[in-house]
């Protein structure tokens, strides 16, 4: 407990702060400044609102007052932008961070040390209080500027303190995460988590009044009351404003949840709890609404508690009910909560505080209710408060009736809590008590993301420190290579690997690395240096053949070196000899990339070439389907037109010289047409091969040509192809022979290369690889479902193997109107390092842009050919499994016919011996490939991670996004061999074990009913749920088998940032877009509850962009975006926004472009009008909601996880 608590404390603080800062600030800023904004606020999230409310209330009674909430949300954003407040908030934030960071350390310390304090705290809230206050102070300081914030903070701190006492343990951890920004707390987080638990533990008892909550309550209660009142009130107001609103919200949730637990207990399991929490908020509001949240808390608490506590998270939360009491205290905390609050009590308070605001909001802006919550959640951060306000109102209204509370509005407020709660784990009580967890009370991805941005986005990330987790993929950061590969190349699930397999097994945390060997770097980072070791080739270890790297230890005065991987000692070749300095380093260490860098390239010698022959420059072959469908949908014309210009942009190493890549053209339907485009010809010649049963290449000379030499003939050809087939009536196509043709051509030319296949339909023509339509939806959900993912004939597997041998990479562009059996057609692309692009129901007018952008990128992107990747590891671990688009003919070599800059390989490691903490674990990924100019090269990425003997270290240094990447790939591969249900179950089970292990071994003891999540993994449940309900693992009736196969294959090559946004889409609110700012608006959570009917949102998942327009969107907004003020006049079929000459439109289009630029595939824009039938599709991406095909909502799933964990623990 103590320990936990302490950590919590620390973390909470830290975290909360960050969270606060980030979130609150914005929100606050908005809130405060614009009293008028209220409306805006409202939109924002509950969390924010909560805070805001607090602030508003405290600060400005008026603004807060009902109306404020709503507007608040908006205003927030605006404020944030324009207002001074914003200014301040940010300020506050930064400061906070520092503190946080400080706290961190402390936190860390705390972890060990703090705990005691905690216990003490527990015993004596004051202590915690102190800590809190400290933090608070810091926080406040940061935020101080905004006096309001100050108070707010103060409260948070207080709350934290309070919280900590009761909740802290659990709450903190979660909070920290939530507060992401607050990251500072992180350290604390880790620590904090425990506290939350303790919290819960405590709370529950206290809470009894509210069943679960009671206990907590009691604990919290005490604290809260104390802290809250004093601090909270002030802090609240301030805090919320500052940044934390979100946090607070987050934090709040816990509180509420707990409290709810109390109230709710009656009905629901953990899940329900969340809702309750919400309600609590509302309740809080009710009480608090009056003025300061903190104060409110108390009052509110009680009322609300009943409602929401359910927050499954923590049954603990219920304790919230304790929370209620705590809430009182909590409210204040929340503010801090962001930071501290999260931990525990704070949360409670926050909630409370929020609650109050909510209440107000609710009351005031009853209408907004529903919305607010949503927004809030989304905005979590600053805005949230306001939204929350709104949200609350409605919810509260409903909630008020407690019942409602649970709903959106509640969720909104809770969110904050969730964080807390989550980490803390809601005490058992919660489950029983709650019917639903308040969504706002559960850990918020947005908050985590924002926190990370705030904490890690500013400083360059240096790779020199072993075992240090890099910033999240959502954070923009600069990397300095100091001996380990940049996270852009390699990300690991765990940066502290367990020392032995027992630990690994116990924790169930997968040990994997996601490697993107040719990842593109931002312009401000240096690409890997090219090293030439001369004719004898790269210097390598004699035994394990590892390449020279910083892990090689030079000994005997530099005459020999000892391999860091296998410890073998190897002579240094004379030409490579260099003296050592006094530290044992080579004198030239920093002159040689291979001795000082994590990533670099070697020139390969002829020994590294196939057949010991210097490779020929690679070739690109374009194979275009010209059957009826392909011609009719415009694909043929578009491709041909585009190729004319695109061929000038073939990959090249030196932009000043022409590309060495040769090109060839084939068209086909059920026969193949090869083209002779020899420069000497006046006209291209077409050669039809109709003997598809036994493919061959009909010409040698003139098929593969240099673009510049044959330009005239090629252009003539590309002009004529669409004409020639304009009247075709051939509907049948072949596919196998098409790839064979390309393969044979490459064989004949004795080079590697890439095939671009543009294909439209199921290949039913008589030929090898002929397929039949096996689309049978009845198989879905049965044990035979897996067969749908397997190729229906083995032909393509054999073909793929041949392709790999030749270095023939296949990229497939599909334009299907119906089932084409992607599972089978995709075999070759996925085995050769190729990509699949699918444009279902392709229409030239609407899909051309997407296709062309994909094509352009695909043709131009840097890539290597005929590649082999080998991952070497230091003794003790071993790469055992690989995921991605490649072929393996043995267990160690990953063969990639083509490897482009977007391809990622996920590698799983297993122990085969013990690791030592001293040496850590090393891995070296070497990729041998042929560059686009025909050079043979080796790219080396080195990575060293720590080894730990304490599970806590493991949990503290892992990366959830990467874990999810691994899980998704693992699961998506498993569907080939196991029934999907089993796959899902095992995923859930493994996650439960991970979390249970943490709970059991790392978290401070607490009530079994508490859900306690490790700080670094507090988003694991939400992300896992996204994986589980993805189309592959839980298909709806409307998803085709092809789409599932397509997605399955797509995910297998995703890197972490792609998989992250794929599973948890980014939802950006636009209505308060700051047209001056260059940064993107803060995202909101993927839940319908966060959408304001008056708002406009952008959602992207790496494959699609949606622009969602609420029915009540302001005319001005619509006018700015669409050029029409009428909602009804918006054309739902538009795929690009009109280029209007107003700042908003420009900025919006810029945003869309910048978002697209981040993704490897061009995303088509779809405009979704609220209540339009297209909205169903859109809703599919609101992954926190219950999906209409049975996918659980986030909150429900969290409860489920909690149950699983509890089962494991008991």
């Amino acid at each position, binding site marked *: 407990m103590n320990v936990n608590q302490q950590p919590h404390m620390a973390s909470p603080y830290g975290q909360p702060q960050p969270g606060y800062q980030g979130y609150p600030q914005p929100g606050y800023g908005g809130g405060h400044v614009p009293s008028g904004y209220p409306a805006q606020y409202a939109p924002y999230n509950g969390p924010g609102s909560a805070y805001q409310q607090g602030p508003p209330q405290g600060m400005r009674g008026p603004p807060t007052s009902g109306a404020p909430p709503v507007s608040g949300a908006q205003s927030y954003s605006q404020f944030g932008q324009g207002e001074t407040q914003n200014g301040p908030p940010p300020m506050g934030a930064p400061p906070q961070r520092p503190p946080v960071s400080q706290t961190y350390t402390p936190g860390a310390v705390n972890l060990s040390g703090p705990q005691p304090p905690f216990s003490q705290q527990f015993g004596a809230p004051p202590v915690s209080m102190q800590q809190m206050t400290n933090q608070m102070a810091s926080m406040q300081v940061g935020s101080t500027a905004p006096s309001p914030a100050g108070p707010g903070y103060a409260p948070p701190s207080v709350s934290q303190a309070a919280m900590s006492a009761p909740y802290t343990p659990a709450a903190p951890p979660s909070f920290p995460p939530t507060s992401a920004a607050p990251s500072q707390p992180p350290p604390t987080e880790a620590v904090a988590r425990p506290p939350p638990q303790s919290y819960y533990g405590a709370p529950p008892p206290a809470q009894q009044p509210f069943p679960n909550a009671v206990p907590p309550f009691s604990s919290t209660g005490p604290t809260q009351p104390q802290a809250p009142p004093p601090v909270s009130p002030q802090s609240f107001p301030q805090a919320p404003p500052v940044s934390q609103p979100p946090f607070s919200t987050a934090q709040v949730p816990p509180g509420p949840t707990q409290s709810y637990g109390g109230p709710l207990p009656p009905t629901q399991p953990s899940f329900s709890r969340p809702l309750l929490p919400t309600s609590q908020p509302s309740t809080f509001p009710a009480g608090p609404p009056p003025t300061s949240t903190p104060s409110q808390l108390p009052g509110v608490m009680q009322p609300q508690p009943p409602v929401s506590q359910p927050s499954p998270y923590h049954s603990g939360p219920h304790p919230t009910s304790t929370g209620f009491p705590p809430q009182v205290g909590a409210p204040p905390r929340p503010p801090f909560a962001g930071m501290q609050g999260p931990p525990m009590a704070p949360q409670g308070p926050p909630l409370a505080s929020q609650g109050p605001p909510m209440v107000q909001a609710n009351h005031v802006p009853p209408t907004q209710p529903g919305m607010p919550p949503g927004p809030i959640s989304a905005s979590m951060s600053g805005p949230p408060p306001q939204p929350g306000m709104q949200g609350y109102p409605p919810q509260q209204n409903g909630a008020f009736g407690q019942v409602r509370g649970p709903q959106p509005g509640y969720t909104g407020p809770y969110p904050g809590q969730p964080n807390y709660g989550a980490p803390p784990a809601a005490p058992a009580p919660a489950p029983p008590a709650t019917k639903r967890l308040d969504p706002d009370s559960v850990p918020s991805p947005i908050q985590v993301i924002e926190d990370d941005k705030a904490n890690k986005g500013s400083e360059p990330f240096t790779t020199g420190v072993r075992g240090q987790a890099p910033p999240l993929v959502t954070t923009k950061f600069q990397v300095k290579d100091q001996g380990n590969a940049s996270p852009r190349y390699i990300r690991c699930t765990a940066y502290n690997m367990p020392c032995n397999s027992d630990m690994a097994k116990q924790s169930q945390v997968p040990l994997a690395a996601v490697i993107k060997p040719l990842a593109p770097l931002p312009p401000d980072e240096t690409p890997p240096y090219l090293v030439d070791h001369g004719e004898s080739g790269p210097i390598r270890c004699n035994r394990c053949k590892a390449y020279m790297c910083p892990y090689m230890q030079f000994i005997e005065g530099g005459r020999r070196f000892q391999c860091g991987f296998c410890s073998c000692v190897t002579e240094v070749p004379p030409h490579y000899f260099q003296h050592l300095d006094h530290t044992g380093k080579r004198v030239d260490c920093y002159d040689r990339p291979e001795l000082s860098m994590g990533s670099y390239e070697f020139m390969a010698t002829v020994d590294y070439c196939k057949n010991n022959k210097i490779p020929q420059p690679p070739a690109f072959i374009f194979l275009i389907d010209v059957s009826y469908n392909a011609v009719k949908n415009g694909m043929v014309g578009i491709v041909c037109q585009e190729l004319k210009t695109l061929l000038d942009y073939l990959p090249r190493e030196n932009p000043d010289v022409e590309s060495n890549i040769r090109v060839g053209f084939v068209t086909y339907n059920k*026969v193949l*047409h*090869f*083209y002779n485009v020899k420069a000497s*010809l006046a*006209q*291209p*010649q*077409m*050669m*039809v*091969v*109709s*003997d598809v049963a*036994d493919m*061959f290449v*009909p*010409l*040698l*000379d*003139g098929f593969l040509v240099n673009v510049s030499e044959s330009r005239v003939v090629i252009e*003539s*050809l590309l002009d*004529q192809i669409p*004409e*020639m087939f304009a009247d075709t009536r*051939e509907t*049948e196509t072949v596919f196998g022979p098409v790839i064979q043709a390309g393969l044979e051509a490459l064989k004949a030319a004795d080079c590697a290369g890439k095939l671009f296949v543009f294909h439209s339909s199921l290949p039913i023509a008589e030929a090898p690889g002929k397929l039949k339509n096996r689309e049978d939806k009845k198989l879905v959900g049965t044990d035979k479902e897996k067969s749908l993912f397997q190729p229906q004939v083995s032909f393509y597997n054999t073909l793929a193997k041949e392709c790999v041998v030749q270095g023939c990479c296949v990229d497939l562009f599909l334009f299907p109107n119906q089932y084409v059996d992607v599972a089978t057609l995709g075999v070759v692309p996925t085995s050769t390092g190729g990509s699949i692009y699918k444009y279902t129901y392709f229409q030239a007018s609407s899909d051309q842009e997407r296709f062309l952008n994909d094509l352009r990128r695909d043709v131009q992107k840097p890539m290597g050919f005929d590649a082999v990747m080998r991952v070497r590891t230091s003794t003790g671990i071993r790469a055992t499994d690989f995921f991605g688009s490649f072929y393996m003919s043995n267990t160690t070599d990953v063969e990639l016919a083509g490897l482009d800059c977007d391809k990622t390989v996920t590698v799983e490691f297993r122990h085969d011996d013990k690791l030592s903490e001293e040496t850590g674990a090393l891995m070296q990924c070497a990729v041998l490939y042929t560059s686009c100019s025909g050079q043979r090269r080796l790219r080396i990425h080195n990575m060293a991670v720590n080894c730990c003997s304490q599970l806590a270290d493991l949990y503290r240094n892992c990366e959830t996004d990467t874990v999810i990447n691994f899980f998704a790939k693992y699961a998506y591969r498993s569907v080939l061999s196991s029934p999907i249900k089993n796959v899902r179950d095992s995923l859930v089970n493994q996650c439960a074990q991970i979390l249970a292990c943490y709970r059991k071994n790392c978290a401070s003891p607490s009530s079994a009913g508490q859900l306690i999540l490790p700080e670094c993994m507090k988003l694991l449940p939400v992300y896992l749920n996204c994986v589980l309900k993805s189309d592959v693992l839980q298909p709806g009736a409307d998803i085709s088998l092809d789409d599932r196969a397509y997605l399955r294959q797509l995910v297998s090559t995703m890197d972490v940032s792609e998989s992250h946004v794929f599973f948890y889409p980014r939802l950006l609110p636009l209505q308060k877009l700051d047209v001056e700012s260059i940064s993107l608006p803060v995202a909101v959570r993927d839940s319908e509850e966060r959408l304001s009917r008056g708002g406009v949102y952008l959602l992207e998942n790496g494959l699609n962009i949606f622009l969602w327009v609420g029915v009540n969107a302001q005319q001005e907004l619509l006018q700015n975006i669409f050029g029409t003020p009428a909602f009804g006049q918006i054309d739902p079929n538009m795929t690009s926004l009109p280029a209007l000459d107003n700042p908003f439109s420009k900025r919006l289009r810029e945003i869309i472009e910048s978002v697209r630029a981040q993704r490897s595939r061009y995303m088509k824009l779809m405009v979704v009008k609220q209540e339009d039938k297209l909205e169903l599709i859109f809703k599919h991406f609101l992954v926190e909601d219950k999906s209409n095909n049975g996918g659980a909502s986030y909150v429900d799933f969290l409860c489920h996880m909690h149950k699983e964990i509890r089962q494991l623990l008991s």
Partner: protein
Amino acid sequence: MSTYQEFIQQNEDRDGVRCSWNLWPSSRLEATRLVVPVSCLYTPLKERPDLPPVQYEPVLCSRANCKAVLNPLCQVDFRAKIWACNFCFQRNSFPPSYAGISEVNQPAELMPQFSTIEYIVQRGPPTPLIFLYVVDTCLEEEDLQALKESLQMSLSLLPPNALVGLITFGRMIQIHELSCEGIAKSYVFRGTKELTPKQIQEMLGLMKPATSGQQGKPLAPHDAAAASCIFLQPVQAVDMNLTDLLGELQRDPWPVPQGKRPLRSTGIALSIAIGLLEGTFPNTGARVMLFTGGPPTQGPGMVVGDELKTPIRSWHDIQKDNARHLKKATKYYEALANRAAVNGHSVDIYACALDQTGLLEMKCLSNLTGGHIVMGDSFNTSLFKQTFQRVFSKDYNGEFRMAFGGTLEVKTSRELKISGAIGPCVSLNTKGPCVSDNEMGVGGTCQWKICSLTPATTLAMYFEVVNQHNAPVPQGGRGAVQFVTQYQHSNTQRRIRVTTIARNWADAQSQIQHIESSFDQEASAVLMARLGVFRAESEEGPDVLRWLDRQLIRLFMFHLRRSPFLQVFNNSPDESSYYRHHFVRQDLTQSLIMIQPILYSYSFYGPPEPVLLDSSSILPDRILLMDTFFQLVIYHGETIAQWRKAGYQEMAEYENFKQLLQAPLDDAQEILQTRFPMPRYIDTEHGGSQARFLLSKVNPSQTHNNLYAWGQESGAPILTDDVSLQVFMDHLKKLAVSSAA
């Protein structure tokens, strides 16, 4: 009718028929004793400038298994408007259109001078002629260039509405699409994979798309024709296109490693050509014209592997059974030939190479379908160029000397049956009352298909007298034979030519002298030679010679025995095939030249005179002109050669010498003008290396063995171990006497 010689001449001129006997022995027994069977050479399309075709349908005997055509030999009752068939004696009434018939108003077919008559009939829509060029691209640059030019030139010779197609082959086979603008399209096949006709048609898009479940069903001819248009286009439409296409034709681009032959997929190329035609224009006149510069080296129908160290099979190999591809390839080409024949398409082979090109295996393609075979050393020779041009020569009416899709039906009177035919034909397996069980040549049928005909195409027809000895033919009875040839004229009309001949029966016992005097020595020689060649094609050489010897004959047999038709020594299998191919289709005169070359002597002592084909004719002061059909040799005697070398012909005072030199050249030119295929033209002199062509043909009356016996002044000694005619005759006489036993 004065003499048999005149009679024979008259018959030949009018009907294109030369019979071995012009009186027929009236019983089987007697006929058998005659050794030379009752037989004839028939030239179905003999040019008859004086014979205008009639524009109506022939009148047929109404008996189902007779269907003989009304002819001058029929008895006609003008009042009853009834005619009696002279073959089956069925009485038929005239069709209504003959209502006005009377003794003074007879239709042409009843007039005696119209024993050969030609009808123009309407049979469906006219179908254009089709020429499908199948061109080998594995040629030397020079050869290919020459070939391309010849082909481009030939486009101007084709009838404008003729359909033309182009297939090129080397390692791969390309069928060129001719209708396209812009991009030149072609369908490509690999040369190693045997494809069924169905597959080929599918791959060429000649099949109906599988719409109603009936996959792979060939298109109705009409649709198929439309579909095939992309490959076969009217010359007038694609003239330019095709000229360009031919102009751009490149040598096969695939590298040929040292020590290898280029990979040449002749077998598949032909199979695709034939497959294309049979899928699109079955039973329509078409010529597949194969131009090849070497042996097929891969895929089905390959004759030799691509290793240069393995030589192409020789007769020696064949006799030792050491030609591993021979049987398989032959079988393959025979199957192709039969398919082509069934559809009425003919295959020409133009093989120009210094080495063999696999004619032995491929000969059946032409032999069974009436196609030409032309063998030369290079496409860049006038032999090929002019011969090829001559394929498209026109007759007095300005029409092509070629006809397609011919069917020859033979009807005989009861005493005769038809044993078989030898010529460029295939059996249609039509059984009938007049078909003999005793087969000679292609027998067992009374109908033959001749896919391609020229006015010179001559078939040898063999008959059997079936009348029993004890059932004498009534005095004055005549045996009659009717040849009914239906064909597609080069102007796309369908025509029917009917020739009816009759010969008197003679009782061998009482009229043996008459029979003897009716013997046509030349015709008999050719007829027997054809039998010999026919056998030689299918049997071992020595056996045939022995058979021939047993059959005994006259003078010409000596030369026949030494001719390349029966003797393979010193000839490659390809050459033998080539010679035999022409022997079985040329008319009597040409055939005789082939058997016994003609030797003319030019000197100051008188006008040119034919001289004995004997070494004694080779004198220093003579110029000799030898015509062996395949070669035309001008040989300058030793003295003449010296004079010529000294340049006397350039001096005004030796104008006569110049004229002497010129005379054989002019004569040779005349022959060259008309002969198809154009003979190899050789101008040589005493001691010249090419003099061997002459020396190998003449009777070696003087050899190194008997040089002194014959004196040095006359003739030139031949270095050979062959016996001379003198010795042969002596021996023959001895045998004739002794064999009486």
